[in-house]
């Protein structure tokens, strides 16, 4: 029993450290996105020498920070939802339907993966306009996001059914 408790505590500590690291990475990427635009304004208006890469980098950072943060720190149910109907149902029925909804979502997302992987090959041939960055790298993140969210949905459906609902970052 004591061993089990120790393992649980160790797992919780690992999860907490992972969450803190992920939050730090999100903050750093968001700061980079913000500073990219500050640099654009500074170079354009103060130094009178506009930078050509800022919009591109900011756009990529927006996609990356959004997908990364959503995948690592936001539970499916942290997003805006309209749960008036399920909330009005008896608790067991509500739990069953919400779990079913999450599982169906997970199945659909898993089914989209083969197509996505196929396009990845083509995306690796595409480069961005200013910095010639490989768009395939960006698309890999999209696939990772799809897989993580599908897995998250299965996990949350299971937790919901067991009676312990998850929130952000679990």
């Amino acid at each position: 029993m004591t061993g089990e408790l120790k393992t649980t505590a160790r797992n919780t500590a690992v999860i907490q450290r992972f969450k803190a690291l992920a939050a730090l990475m999100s903050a750093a990427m968001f700061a980079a996105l913000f500073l990219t635009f500050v640099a654009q304004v500074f170079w354009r208006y103060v130094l009178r020498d506009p930078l050509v890469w800022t919009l591109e980098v900011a756009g990529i950072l927006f996609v990356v920070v959004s997908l990364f943060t959503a995948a690592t720190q936001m539970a499916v149910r942290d997003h805006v939802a309209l749960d008036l109907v399920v909330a009005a149902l008896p608790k067991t029925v509500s739990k069953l339907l919400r779990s079913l909804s999450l599982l169906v979502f997970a199945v659909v997302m898993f089914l989209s993966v083969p197509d996505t992987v196929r396009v990845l090959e083509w995306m690796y041939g595409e480069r961005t306009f200013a910095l010639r960055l490989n768009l395939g790298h960006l698309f890999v993140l999209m696939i990772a996001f799809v897989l993580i969210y599908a897995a998250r949905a299965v996990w949350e459906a299971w937790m919901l059914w067991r009676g312990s609902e998850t929130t952000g970052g679990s």
Partner: protein
Amino acid sequence: MLEPLHWAALFFGFQILLGLPIGMVLISTVVVWSLAAGADASLMAERVIFASVENIIVIAIPLFIFTAKVMDHGGISKRLLDFCLALVGHRPGGLAQVNIVSSIIFSGMSGDATSDASGIGQVLIKMMRDEGRYPPAYAAAVTVASSSIGPIIPPSIPMLVYAFFAEVSIGALFLAGILPGLLMGVAMMMLVAAQARRRGFPVEKRLAGGAMLAATIGAIGPLLMPVILLGGIYSGVFTPTEAAAVAGSYAVLLSVFLYRQSSWGALYCALVESARQSGMVFLLIGGGFALNYVFTVERVTDTITAFILGLEITQLQLLFVVHAAFIAMGMFLTKAPMMYVVVPALLPGLSAAGVDLVHFGVIITLNMMVSMITPPMGLMVFIVGGLAKIPIGPIFRESVPFMITLYAVMILITVFPQLVLWLPELAG
């Protein structure tokens, strides 16, 4: 035999009813349609990524989110509050008037209603409730109603999203929101004055000249924010995205360096919260964008356009039909599905019918904002009620006069488009 669009519609309805988050519903609905139609789901993902990377309007959204978060964490609200108290605290319904004026000023700095309602709004609810000066539900209702000004007066995140889908000038849209936003504020202040006289609400002491001057000087920093932001955009100095970066830098400068009311830890929290909110918005924009691609391929937008053109009604009647539909939807939906699915689907039809899309952007944003205080699904009432721990039912009851007032403003700016279009036309 069900067509791909039918499968998608069934899936969408099923998942929305079961409470799956709207961003997830949009994305997975597009995947279901792709699977049923034998289309490549990932091509949609690729379009979303390209649209986000290449569209500077979309990139302005996280920057405005960040600005609002910095101000929330940075003690700027307190200075604004002191200034508003000095300005209108002595008028009938003093603190309720302060609540509305602070929302108007805050709107010129922040792009969404939630920051206003959950930041400065909560401070005002507490002040209004203290010593039983105002009924708690009334305090919450004023906060909820006045926060609806946030997305009308620029900068505005919903208008940035609208500009992305409607492909209209964000500069024109921002200018178009100023007069309607001020009208909303003035109309609500008149309502509060009338209610204050009837219900005997207290007035605050008029500040002496010195104290008033001190409050004004204290608020000069935050008050300059809308001037820099809007002045920069309309003088042609900044693009809206650059203006968002300048606004964010200015907010950091004020709260961290000048007022020293925001620690580096608070700034870190603002960055993390901004990243999280960006994640949420990105999924909604991406899902909405992909679903609208499906609508185009399946000719749903063509059908809607043909239907609108076949109505044989005047433009004004058409706008009121749309208003009625949005009011009905707003009772049961949050603004996200309306903003990311319904509005983009309607735009080609409205444009073909000759509706000015800048005018429509403002009136429909106002409609959706009022839906956030409309029972039974008024999201903002749930947020404010939850934060201030005030029962929802009485807030909805107290919100009714505000709702009617805001709908009256909506009708006014719909009937008289010049109230919306005068400023953008003036700026050329």
